[in-house]
């Protein structure tokens, strides 16, 4: 009998959860800003995935040169013009999106799970564990993220992968802070106490009871973070310690293009706008989600 009651309870809980998500989806659709943000992200992701197919000159993504057509202004053939060695800027922007999105996926793919796990542990156990973990996060936050990433990158070879490593190495801290602050207020809630009394194991309470209540703020934060990570990656590439030429990093392209201002403005401006559009998409979506789930998340 007790099992059937437990099943019933489980069903009720999962039904309630589903209803919550359904309501959230409805609220989401009623916000044009967040829908536009989502559309931008989907379009950019698709064009990045299919860049080899849809780019007008896929060969221009790499080491190609054509000195007969350098720095041509935008035209039907080259909607965003050509760069200093005659490559099509639009094609390079499409391939550049691949690198930006990959950066966001890798950094958040490493940073979020690690950060969430440490946040759960710190918040749940409290005491010394919490102090040590939170002190480490404070240290990582003792510098602006760009400077921290720059300092870490300085010891490594300047490549895209090392830039990703550097950013990922500090990104988990934000998620640790977020989750820890939620967990430390949740751990005294009745449902956690009840689970403890029922003899549930610590991992069960952390992952099955508390974690579901952290999911919506984490989701909002991940969305806003994606934009921020892309900005930092672009900044590192612009400085010269991220994506290296001839690879088509968006920040790298802007940096190369500044040498040809103001006459060949398209070379720097279009890659810059491309970063802006994508980051804007993530911010619009994140902002919408924040309203939908009604959570407070800092950038």
């Amino acid at each position, binding site marked *: 009998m007790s099992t059937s009651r437990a099943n019933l309870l489980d069903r009720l809980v999962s039904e309630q959860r589903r209803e919550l998500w359904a309501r959230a989806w409805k609220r989401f659709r009623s916000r044009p800003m967040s829908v536009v943000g989502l559309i931008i992200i989907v379009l950019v992701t698709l064009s990045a995935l299919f860049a080899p197919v849809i780019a007008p000159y896929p060969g221009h993504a790499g080491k190609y040169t054509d000195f007969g057509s350098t720095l041509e202004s935008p035209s039907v053939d080259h909607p965003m013009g050509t760069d200093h060695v005659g490559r099509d800027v639009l094609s390079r922007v499409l391939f550049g999106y691949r690198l930006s999105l990959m950066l966001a996926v890798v950094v958040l793919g490493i940073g979020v799970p690690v950060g969430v796990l440490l946040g759960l542990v710190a918040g749940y156990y409290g005491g010394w564990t919490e102090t040590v973990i939170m*002190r*480490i996060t*404070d*240290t*990582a*936050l*003792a*510098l*602006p*993220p*760009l*400077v921290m990433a*720059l*300092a*870490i*990158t*300085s*010891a*490594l*070879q*300047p490549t895209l992968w090392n830039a990703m490593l550097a950013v990922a190495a500090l990104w988990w801290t934000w998620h640790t802070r977020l989750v820890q602050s939620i967990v430390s207020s949740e751990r005294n809630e009745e449902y956690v106490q009840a689970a403890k009394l029922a003899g549930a194991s610590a991992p069960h309470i952390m992952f099955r009871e508390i974690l579901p209540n952290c999911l919506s703020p984490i989701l909002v934060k991940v969305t806003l973070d994606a*934009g921020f990570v892309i*900005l930092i990656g*672009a*900044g590192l590439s*612009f*400085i*010269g*310690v991220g994506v290296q030429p001839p690879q088509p990093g968006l*920040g790298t392209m*802007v*940096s190369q293009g*500044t040498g040809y*201002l*103001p006459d060949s*403005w398209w070379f*720097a*401006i279009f890659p*810059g706008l491309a*970063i*802006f559009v994508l*980051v*804007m998409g993530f*911010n*619009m979506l994140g*902002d919408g989600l924040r309203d939908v789930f009604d959570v407070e998340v800092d*950038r």
Partner: protein
Amino acid sequence: MKYWQYLARRLAGGVVSLIGLSIIIFIVSRILPGNPARMALGAMASEEQVQELTREMGLTQPLWQQYLGYMQGLLTGDLGRSLETKRAVSVDIVEYLPATLELITVSILLTIVIGIPLGVIAAQNKDGWIDHATRLIAFFSVSVPGFFIGILFQLIFGYLLDWFPITGRLSSRFSGEITQYTGFFLLDTLASGDILAHLNVWHHILLPALALSMAGMGQVMRLTRSSMIDVKNQDYVEAERGYGLPDWLVTYKYTLKNAFIPTLTVLGLLYASLLGNAFLIELVFSWPGLARYGITAVINNDFNAVVGVTMTIGVAFVGINFLIDMLLGRVDPRIRLQIEEAT
């Protein structure tokens, strides 16, 4: 907990963070692939030269001794020599830091004089066009890469309209004339009584400072707006209106004063974070500051300089945040009370 105890605890936390930072930077500078001495001397150096420099740099000692030596250097301000400039890193930092501090200070001032009034106006005309415009600017400012704003400003206000110079701190015709008392050109030119040079400094600093301020401008506007709206609906404001106080007095004196507190916190965080964005803006505007010095150091594997710049920024970052904590406790008695009640 008493207020001063709270401050002491914050200060201790900051110091622990800085020690942690020094360890991270130390580890980072020691996992460098290859021998730093070899990198410093270049591929042409002989084996003996490399070995001599290795000893000189203390790289033969055990790691913990190296760390202690390095900490001793940090605390006494002896940061070693820069491989690039061949001068003591501390001398370089003293030379370049004022340019950066001047830039971020003007930048935060611009944020205040532009952002706060616009936020107030947006709150007064909720859902009016200024309100919508500030919302757009806020979105724009967090989505645009800092270096790209700089480039756009150069293109529009420099090349196209020709209103501002796009690089440097001072026109060359003035550079010989002014005595550098502080390294802050705005102060130095005033101290020398050279008004033309002073105006010239403003002319150079406005564009990069404005570009730098954009990232936080939107945030400050929106925050001022929302806290103005919160405060406006409180009873005491209603009462003041009831007494027949003029609108502007209620808005700018009584409402703004309380609405300013959340903004002050954000301004503090912003001021510290400008140190990060300055890296990009200084590069774009060829601003001879600490950030540009740091970038050159990173690209050339100039480790002493990287450590010096990073620790300086860390100290500034932690220091500014601590000052804001202190200031908030003074401005807002409620915060002090909260701290005292928390125990």
